[in-house]
């Protein structure tokens, strides 16, 4: 069976209540799943003898501020998965609400998720429950806020022109 069909079969048989929809765009296969099932789904994909999804190529996130109703949540966590033995890449996406962006960590399935989840936590503010060491990774110590969110200020300081060149630097908040 082709990997594409095997994934669909596995998800619809074992996790029929958790898979929201499947999208196919130019041979890119994407599954939207519910947040509470992500750990079980990932474990099943890794352990499946035919698929062996053993490589979490990337874990990232998208802020859909202003598109919450259309997308079904504000934050989207993207799992870029790859099976080395079958050379097949596909995506799993999870939508999270704005007021409580929390999801289970997948470090138990792929240890490489550790730093990727820390990066997403650092820049987007998504909390990964069960992560062994969830702290900021890129921004300096004591940094506040989540810079890659859409509502984070785009510029840092008021630029100095001739009319305000003598004012002290003013940080935009």
């Amino acid at each position, binding site marked *: 069976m082709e990997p594409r069909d095997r994934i669909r079969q596995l998800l619809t048989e074992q996790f029929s209540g958790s898979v929201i929809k499947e999208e196919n765009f130019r041979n890119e296969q994407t599954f939207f799943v519910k947040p509470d099932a992500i750990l079980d789904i990932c474990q099943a994909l890794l352990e499946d003898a035919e698929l062996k999804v053993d490589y979490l190529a990337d874990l990232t996130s998208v802020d859909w501020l202003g598109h919450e109703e259309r997308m079904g949540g504000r934050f989207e966590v993207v799992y870029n998965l790859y099976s080395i033995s079958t050379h097949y890449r596909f995506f799993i996406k999870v939508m999270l609400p704005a007021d409580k962006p929390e999801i289970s960590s997948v470090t138990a399935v792929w240890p490489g998720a550790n730093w990727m989840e820390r990066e997403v936590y650092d820049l987007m503010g998504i909390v990964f429950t069960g992560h062994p060491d969830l702290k900021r990774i890129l921004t300096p110590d004591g940094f506040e806020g989540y810079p890659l969110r859409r509502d*984070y200020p785009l510029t840092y300081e008021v630029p100095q022109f001739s009319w305000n060149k003598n004012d002290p630097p003013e940080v935009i908040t």
Partner: protein
Amino acid sequence: MGLEEKIPDSVILTTLDKMVNWAHKRSMWPLGFGLACCAIEMMSTFAAHFDLSRYGMEVMRPSPRQADLMIVAGRVSMKMAPVLRTLYDQMPNPKWVISMGACASCGGIFNNYAILQGVDRIVPVDVYVPGCPPRPEQLMQGILKLQEKVDRESIKDKRDEWGRAAV
């Protein structure tokens, strides 16, 4: 004193200031401090095409203990800022700083949370070299300007908290 007339080929009378400044400006050892794309232009300045050793300052030092000029070449991130300040403090007096490029001077196009908006917030800057990135000729112009500045210093000058002469 008539000393020059008696042994004209061996003695030059000068002031202590001139001699000290001459020693300072003609063998300034820069700290290798490349942070971004400006560093490529800085390396090019030191390399064969432009050959900064003509001004006696081609000896890039990897250790701040042996350097007396810091060329900040590139944008300084907020995480790099304390490191830069530590390196500056480790340099022995007298020491000078050239801020190379728009990013080091004022943040440049990176007006965001990650980049320090001008290296003069944390270290005193002697010469600003504009450009994005500046060409090697511009950096050399900046270095010549710094040599002019060093030439005006005196050992009698009042010193600020960093031991720098107020010129």
